[in-house]
C-alpha cells in the first residue's frame, strides 16, 4: 500500500500542509531569533499552540516537557526550543507509522464514522480511488440512509472511482445496507469494502446506538472486522473533537483518525489531545476536495505546519 500512497501524493501533502520545514523555521524562528529563553518566549509558544487548537491541557503538558528538556540540555537561545517542541509533539502523536489495517484473508472492511459534515463520504470516495489504483477490488456501502442525497453523493464518488455501490433507498435501515454489502463483498471476492455512515453528533444516544449496531453486524458477519474504523475529524474543529473521539470509540472501537480539511487554515491540533489522552493515532489526512487529495499522516510535517506562525 505504501508505494501508491507515497508517489506524488506525499509531496502534495507536504506542499499543502507543511509549507515545509523551511517556512516554519523562518516564521517562528524569526520571532524567537537571538532571544534568550525567558517567560515571554514560553508565552509566545503557548499562544502558537493554543491557536492551533491543541487545547489547554495538552498545551500545558507540551510546555512542561519543553521546559524540562530545555533545562536538561542547558538551552539558552529561544530558537533552539523549536525542534524540541516539534519533537515533543511528534512524541505525543505516538505511533507515527500506524498503517491502515488490512485483512490477511477475505475482504478488508473499513468503517468510516464521524459527526455531520466532517468529510466521511468524500474520504470514502478518495480511498476507493486509492485502493483501485493499487489494483484492489473495491466496493462501497451507502450506510448513510438518512441525509438527503447522501446515497446519490456516494454513487457519484463511486462513478468517479469506478467502483460499485451497495445501496438501498433513503430511510432504510443502515445496518441492513451494511449487511447486504458484507454479503456482496464476500460473494464477489472483494478486497476492500468501504462503509460510509451518516453523520451523527456524539451526544445523540440513539444515533450512537444505531452506529454500534452497524459495528456489531460487521463484526458478526466477518470475524475480526471492521479492520479499521476511521473517525473523520474536521481540522477546523475545536476541543469538541476530543469528546467526539471518546464517544465514537465507545460506540464503534475507533482505530484511527482521518484528519480532513487540512488544506484549510486550521491546524487540527486537537488530534494531539486525542492521541495523548486516548491513544488513537492519526492515520490519514484529507487535503482538498479532489479525488486524490488524501495522504498518509506524517507527524513531522504535521508538527512543523502546526508550529509555523502562519500556514
Amino acid at each position, binding site marked *: 500500500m505504501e508505494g501508491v500512497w507515497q508517489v506524488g501524493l506525499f509531496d502534495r501533502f507536504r506542499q499543502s500542509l507543511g509549507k515545509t520545514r523551511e517556512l516554519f523555521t523562518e516564521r517562528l524562528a524569526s520571532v524567537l531569533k537571538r532571544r534568550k529563553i525567558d517567560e515571554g518566549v514560553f508565552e509566545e509558544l503557548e*499562544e502558537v499552540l*493554543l*491557536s*492551533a*487548537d491543541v*487545547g*489547554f491541557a495538552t498545551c500545558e503538558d507540551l510546555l512542561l516537557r519543553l521546559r524540562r528538556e530545555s533545562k536538561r540540555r542547558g538551552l539558552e537561545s529561544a530558537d533552539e526550543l523549536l525542534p524540541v517542541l516539534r519533537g515533543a509533539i511528534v512524541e505525543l502523536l505516538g505511533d507515527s507509522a500506524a498503517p491502515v489495517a488490512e485483512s490477511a484473508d477475505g475482504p478488508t472492511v473499513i468503517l468510516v464514522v464521524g*459527526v*455531520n*459534515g*466532517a*468529510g466521511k463520504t468524500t474520504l470514502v*470516495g478518495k480511498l476507493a480511488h486509492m485502493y483501485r489504483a493499487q489494483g484492489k477490488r473495491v466496493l462501497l456501502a451507502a450506510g448513510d*440512509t*438518512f*441525509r*438527503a*442525497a447522501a446515497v*446519490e*453523493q456516494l*454513487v*457519484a*464518488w463511486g462513478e*468517479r472511482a469506478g467502483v460499485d455501490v451497495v445501496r438501498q433507498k433513503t*430511510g432504510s435501515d443502515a445496518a441492513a445496507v451494511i449487511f447486504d454489502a458484507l454479503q456482496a463483498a464476500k460473494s464477489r471476492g472483494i478486497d476492500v469494502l468501504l462503509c460510509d455512515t451518516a*453523520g451523527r*453528533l*456524539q*451526544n*445523540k*444516544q*440513539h*444515533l450512537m*446506538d*444505531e452506529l454500534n449496531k452497524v459495528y456489531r453486524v460487521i463484526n458478526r458477519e466477518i470475524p475480526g472486522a471492521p479492520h479499521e474504523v476511521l473517525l473523520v475529524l*474536521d481540522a*477546523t*474543529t*475545536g*476541543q*469538541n*473533537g476530543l*469528546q467526539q473521539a471518546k464517544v465514537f470509540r465507545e460506540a464503534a472501537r475507533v482505530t484511527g483518525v482521518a484528519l480532513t*480539511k487540512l*488544506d*484549510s*487554515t*486550521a*491546524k487540527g491540533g*486537537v488530534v494531539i489531545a486525542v492521541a495523548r489522552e486516548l491513544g488513537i493515532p492519526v492515520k490519514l489526512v484529507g487535503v482538498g*476536495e479532489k479525488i486524490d487529495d488524501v495522504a498518509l499522516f506524517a507527524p513531522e510535517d504535521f508538527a512543523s505546519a502546526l508550529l509555523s506562525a502562519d500556514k
Partner: protein
Amino acid sequence: MHVFDTLSDRLQATFRRLRGKGRLSPDDVKEALREVRRALLEADVNHVVAREFIDRVQERAVGQEILQSLSAAQQVVKIVSEELTALMGGEQSRLARAAQPPTVVMLVGLQGAGKTTAIAKLARLLKTSEHRRPLLVAADVYRPAAVTQLQLLGEQIGTPVFALTGDALPHDIVDQALAHARRAGNDYVLVDTAGRLQVDSAMMEELRDLKALAAPQEILLVVDAMTGQDAISVAQEFHRVLGVTGVILSKMDSDTRGGAALTVRHATGCPIKYVGTSERPDGLEPFYPDRMASRILGMGDVLSLIEKAQATVDEGQARELEQKLLRNEFTFDDFLAQLQQVKNLGPLDQLLGMLPGMGRMKQMKESAADTGQLKKVEAIILSMSREERGRPELIEKSATRRMRIAKGSGTQVKDVNQLLRQFGEMRKVMKQFSGFGKGGRGAMKGMGGMGPFGGGMKGGPRDFAPRGGSRGKKRR
C-alpha cells in the same frame, strides 16, 4: 480525572476559594480571571478574543470595587456573563426585506458547515411563519449531488428549487433564477453556494461576483458551532471579501460549548441571527445571547429549557421545589416525581444537555438518556422505604440497606451505589446553582420548577418529538 470539567464548575471552585479568603486582592481577581480565560479557551473562544474579553472584565470588575465586596464571587460571575451576553447581543433573528421583492439571501461558508441544510430551514421558516413564497437556488455546482440534495430538501418542505442541468456556472444560475423568481412572484430568493475555504481566492472571487450580480439583502455566514480557533480567520476573511450581514450558527445541538459564537461575533460585528438545532428542516431557532453566554460558561442552556416548559410549569410546585433545593432538602421522592413527569417530555439526552452542572454528571446524563436505565433508577427508588427516600444518608451509611434495595429492585449493589453518588452530585450542583441565582439574574428563580428534571411540567412541550419507536431518524 477532571472533577471540574465545565467553566461554571471551575469558576465555582475558584470563587469558593476566593470567598474562603474573605478579602480579595488584585491578585485574587487575576487568578479568577485566569480560570475564566482557561475556560473560554476550552470553550473554543479564540485566544485573542479571550484575552481582550478578560481585560474588559478586569477593568469593569475593578471599577466596581469588587475587591471590597463580600459577594465578590457572585459579582464576578455576573459581570462575566453580562459582558459575554453584551458582546454577543444586539438585534437578531429577522431577515432583511427588500423594498422591492424579491429579497435575496445568500448563504456562504466553509465546506460542510451546514449551508444547504440551513437554506431549507430558512425557507421552511419563511413559509410557515411568514407565509412567504421562497425560491431555493442551487448554485453549488461543485459538490457531488449538491443539487440533488437541495432538490430533495425542497420537496420535503414543499418549496420550489431552481437548478440548471449541464455545465451552467453559478453566475448564470443565479441570474436566471432571479428572472424566474420575478416571473413566478417569489418574494424570497435563497441562494445555496458551494462550501469554500476563505483563502481560496478564485472561489471567493466567485462569491464576490454573485454578490455584485444579485445584490443580496442578506449574506449569511454559516459557521459550525464546533469550530475551533480558526473561526476568527474564517469570519474575518468572509466578512472582508463579502460584507457579511449575519451569522447562522449550525449544529448547536452538539455538546460543544460553542465559543466560536463569541469569536465570530467579535470578528464580524454581525448579529448571529439563527442557530441550527437538528438535521431536520424544522431545526432552526432564534439566537439568544444570554443563553449562549451561559452555555459558553458551562451553565447549561437553562433558559431554553425554561421557555420550552414555561407554559406548563406549576407555579406553586415550582416555588416549593426551589425552597427545597435551597435548603438542600431535595429527596429521592422529589427525584422520583420528576423522573415520572419527565417521561412525557421527550428525548432525555436533549433535555438533560440543557441543564446546568451536567458537564459534571456525564454519567448521569448518559445513563438517564437511556430508557432502560431510567426504569432501573425508578425501580431502585421504589425499593427504598419512605424514610430512606427522604434521608438518602441512611442508605449511604448502611451496606445492608443497599443490598436489600438492590435485591428488591432486581439490580446490583453497584447500581444502587452509582445512583446514590449521582444523586449526591446532583444535589450539590443544584445547591450551588441556586446560590448564584440570588446574586445574579435570578437564574434559580427563573429556573423555577425545572429542578433537575423539569418537575412541575404537565404536558409535553410543543417541539419535542415523542419518544419511542426504534427508528432513530425520526428523532433527529
